[in-house]
């Protein structure tokens, strides 16, 4: 970190409006996309992105610059999203109704356009993957996240991330073929 960045982060930690707004503008889209892809739906993204940034501002004095700032912020976003996902899974497990099915049905209605249908199909296939493959795979698909950042976010070696992304892609392709045989490739 250079002196300018240290001063900027210091202003963020003390609640300086323009400095905080700049940080949010710079990383907001990536934070929201990490949360969106982790949860697989839009409903809570804004609230959780807000929670992420408030945590970031609160813990900024603890940030020692060992990792890149973007990596640290992405890690916080991933933790917030994963906490929300676990809460949702616990809620779903205790509810008699299958709300996951309702979400899929809403996607079907909204997905009148072909692209929306494809996205709904990909999301449905992703939801069936085990978490250990799903998370590295979805993060690898986010622009700006490299393997090094993903490895830090998931606290695992880069080699393991690459292996799980590779295996995740295989599993996703199998799931897509099972859900829509021959219907998911670019040729269709």
């Amino acid at each position, binding site marked *: 970190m250079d002196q300018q960045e240290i001063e900027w982060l210091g202003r*963020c930690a003390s609640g300086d*409006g323009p400095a905080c707004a700049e940080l*949010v503008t710079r990383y907001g889209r990536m934070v929201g996309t990490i949360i969106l892809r982790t949860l697989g739906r839009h409903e809570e993204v804004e609230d959780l992105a807000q929670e992420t940034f408030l945590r970031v501002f609160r813990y900024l004095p603890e940030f020692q610059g060992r990792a890149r700032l973007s990596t640290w912020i992405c890690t916080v976003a991933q933790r917030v999203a994963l906490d929300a996902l676990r809460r949702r899974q616990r809620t779903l497990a205790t509810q008699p109704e299958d709300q996951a099915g309702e979400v899929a049905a809403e996607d079907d209605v909204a997905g009148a356009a072909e692209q929306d249908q494809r996205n709904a199909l990909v999301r449905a296939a992703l939801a069936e993957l085990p978490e250990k493959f799903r998370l590295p795979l979805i993060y690898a698909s986010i622009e700006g996240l490299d393997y090094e950042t993903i490895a830090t976010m998931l606290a695992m070696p880069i080699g393991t991330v690459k292996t799980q992304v590779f295996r995740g892609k295989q599993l*996703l392709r199998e799931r897509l073929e099972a859900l829509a045989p021959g219907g998911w490739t670019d040729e269709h």
Partner: protein
Amino acid sequence: MNTEARGPQDRTLARLHQLPAWQPPADFAVRLAAAAARQAAEAPLDPSSTFTWLLRRLVHRLPLGLSAGAVALVLLALPWSAFAESTLLPWLVAACGALLGLVLAMRVLRAP
């Protein structure tokens, strides 16, 4: 982006890239800046709320705490006299263990 793979796997990843990214609302940064200012202006935590916070975090990390307790019990039950005649060894192990536990606890508790 990580797109060095080619073939069917590459197409699979391309599909993932096409999923929509999140677009923050226009006033998102301004609202958050205001919330950050309010957060920064809050009074520092008093000792009782710090204790509550610490307790909550420790409970949240219950498996970690229970594992540490189990390791401590195992260390306590070890027949130290069988390993060495010196009485220094158990103290040395205990001190190292405590130091390691302290470092790990600080890392866990200071993580956002």
